[in-house]
C-alpha cells in the first residue's frame, strides 16, 4: 500500500525494477499502473544505471521501428526479487559475435539476416507443414503412452520444439540426443560452440535444402556462420516449447475457449495471434540504446540511454486491445508484439506459427477429456533469462 502511495506522489522519478508477481496469462498489475502513468517509466538496470521501460503499445512500436536505436551494449534490466548482477555478458566477446544478429545494427545486421530469410518465409513455413504434423503426431503418441498425470512441457512441448528446430536448421539425425541435452538442458557457451562446429563439419559434406546448408553456401565468414548458427540453435527453441505449454494452459484455464476451438478449428488462424498476444514470453525485449537525443511522442530519450520495450505490457494496452485481460480467440489480435517488431522481429515467426498450431490442435483433438491437474504458470515463477522472460514450467494434465 505504501508503495502505491509513493508512486502516486512521484510517478516519474522513482526508478523501478521489473515486477515478478505476474504469470504469462495474467501479467503483474504493476504494468497497468505504469501504463496509466505514462508511455515510458524509469527502469533500473543490473549495472545500476537508469533507463526506460516502454509499456504502451504505440510507443513500443515506434521504438522498435526507429533506426536511431542500437542493439548494443546489452545492458540487462533489474528484476524484483533478484540480486543485482554486476554485468551479464550475453555475448562471449569472441569473433562469433559477428554473427549474433541480436547484437548487430543496420547494414551489418541486414547482410547476416538476409542469408537465412528464404527458409523462414510464409511459403517455406507452409512447406514444413507435413513434417511438423509428423513430428507432433509422433510426440503425441509418446505423450499418450505415459502414465497420467503427465507433464506436457517435458513430454510434448520441449521435444516438439527441438525436433522442429532440427528440421528447419537441418541438424542431422545423429545429433538429436546431443542437441536436446545441450539446448533443452543447461550447457555452457563453449559446449554449444564445440557442438555446432561438429554439426557444421558434417553438413559441409552433405549440403541439403535447409538453413545450415544455406549458411555454408553463403559468402559469410566462418565466425559469422558459427555465430549465426549459435543464435539460431538457441533462439526460438525454448520459445516454441513455451508457447505450446502456454497456449494449452490458457485453454485449460478457459474451458469455453477450448470448446470454441474444438467446435470450430478455423478459429486457430486468428486465434494464434491472440495466443501470442496474451502469452508473450518476453517481459522486456533485448534493450536498445539511443544513438542520439530523440523525442518520440511525449517522451524524451537521451543519447546513450537504455530503453526496454515490454511486449507483455504493450500487448495488454487497452488503447490498442479493448478489454485487454480477456482471452478471446475470436478477437483481431494482429499487431501484437509477441514476436517482437521492427528489424529484429522474430525471423522464425511464420514457422513458429505452424509448429505451435500443430502442437495445440493435435493435442486438443486427440484427447477430448484432457484436463488440467497443475500448471506452474498459474503461479508467479522465476524469470528464465536476464532480459526477463517467462518460463514454460511444468504443465501436469490427465485424461479419462
Amino acid at each position, binding site marked *: 500500500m505504501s508503495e502505491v502511495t509513493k508512486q502516486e506522489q512521484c510517478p516519474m522519478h522513482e526508478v523501478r525494477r521489473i515486477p515478478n508477481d505476474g504469470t504469462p496469462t495474467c501479467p503483474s498489475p504493476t504494468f497497468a499502473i505504469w501504463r496509466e502513468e505514462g508511455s515510458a517509466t524509469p527502469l533500473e538496470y543490473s549495472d545500476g544505471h537508469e533507463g526506460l521501460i516502454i509499456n504502451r503499445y504505440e510507443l513500443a512500436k515506434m521504438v*522498435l*521501428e526507429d533506426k536511431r536505436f542500437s542493439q548494443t551494449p546489452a545492458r540487462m534490466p533489474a528484476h524484483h526479487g533478484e540480486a543485482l548482477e554486476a554485468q551479464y555478458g550475453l555475448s562471449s566477446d569472441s569473433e562469433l559475435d559477428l554473427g549474433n544478429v541480436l547484437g548487430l545494427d543496420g547494414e551489418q545486421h*541486414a547482410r547476416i*539476416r*538476409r542469408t*537465412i*530469410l*528464404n*527458409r*523462414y*518465409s*510464409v*511459403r*517455406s*513455413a507452409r512447406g514444413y507443414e507435413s513434417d511438423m504434423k509428423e513430428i507432433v503426431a509422433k510426440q503425441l503418441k509418446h505423450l499418450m503412452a505415459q502414465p497420467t498425470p503427465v507433464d506436457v512441457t517435458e513430454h510434448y512441448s520441449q521435444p516438439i520444439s527441438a525436433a522442429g528446430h532440427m528440421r528447419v536448421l537441418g541438424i542431422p539425425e545423429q545429433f538429436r540426443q546431443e542437441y536436446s541435452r545441450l539446448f533443452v538442458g543447461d550447457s555452457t557457451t563453449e559446449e554449444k560452440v564445440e557442438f555446432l562446429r561438429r554439426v557444421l563439419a558434417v553438413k559441409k559434406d552433405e549440403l541439403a535444402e535447409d538453413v545450415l546448408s544455406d549458411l555454408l553456401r553463403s559468402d559469410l565468414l566462418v565466425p559469422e556462420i558459427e555465430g549465426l548458427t549459435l543464435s539460431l540453435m538457441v533462439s526460438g527453441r525454448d520459445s516454441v516449447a513455451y508457447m505450446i505449454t502456454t497456449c494449452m494452459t490458457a485453454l485449460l484455464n478457459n474451458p469455453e475457449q477450448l470448446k470454441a476451438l474444438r467446435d470450430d478449428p478455423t478459429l486457430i488462424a486468428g486465434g494464434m495471434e491472440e495466443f501470442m498476444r496474451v502469452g508473450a514470453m518476453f517481459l522486456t525485449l533485448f534493450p536498445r540504446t539511443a544513438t542520439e537525443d530523440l523525442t518520440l511522442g511525449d517522451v524524451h530519450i537521451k543519447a546513450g540511454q537504455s530503453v526496454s520495450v515490454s511486449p507483455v505490457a504493450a500487448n495488454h494496452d487497452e488503447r490498442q486491445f479493448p478489454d485487454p485481460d480477456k482471452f478471446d480467440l475470436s478477437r483481431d489480435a*494482429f*499487431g501484437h508484439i509477441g514476436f*517482437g*517488431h*521492427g*528489424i529484429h*522481429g*522474430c*525471423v522464425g*515467426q*511464420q514457422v513458429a*506459427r505452424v509448429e505451435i498450431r500443430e502442437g495445440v490442435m493435435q493435442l486438443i483433438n486427440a484427447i477430448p477429456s484432457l484436463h488440467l491437474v497443475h500448471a506452474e504458470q498459474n503461479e508467479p515463477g522465476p524469470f528464465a533469462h536476464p532480459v526477463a522472460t517467462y518460463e514454460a514450467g511444468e504443465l501436469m494434465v490427465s485424461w479419462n
Partner: protein
Amino acid sequence: MKIRVDREACIGAGQCALVAGSIFDQDDDGLVVLLTDTPSDEYVAFARKAATLCPAKAIALEE
C-alpha cells in the same frame, strides 16, 4: 489504391504474405514481391492491414 514496396527495407518477416497473400508474396530470397500493385476494392482493407503490420515499414500505400 496503389501499393509500393521497398525491398531494400524488407526484412522478410512475412506478415504481408500472411494476412494478404493474394497481394503480397515472398521470392526465393524471402523478400517481398507484389502480385498486384492495384488491389481491387474488396482487398484494400487487407493491403492496409499488411502495411500496418510490416515491421520494417516497407509497404507504402497511395490512396
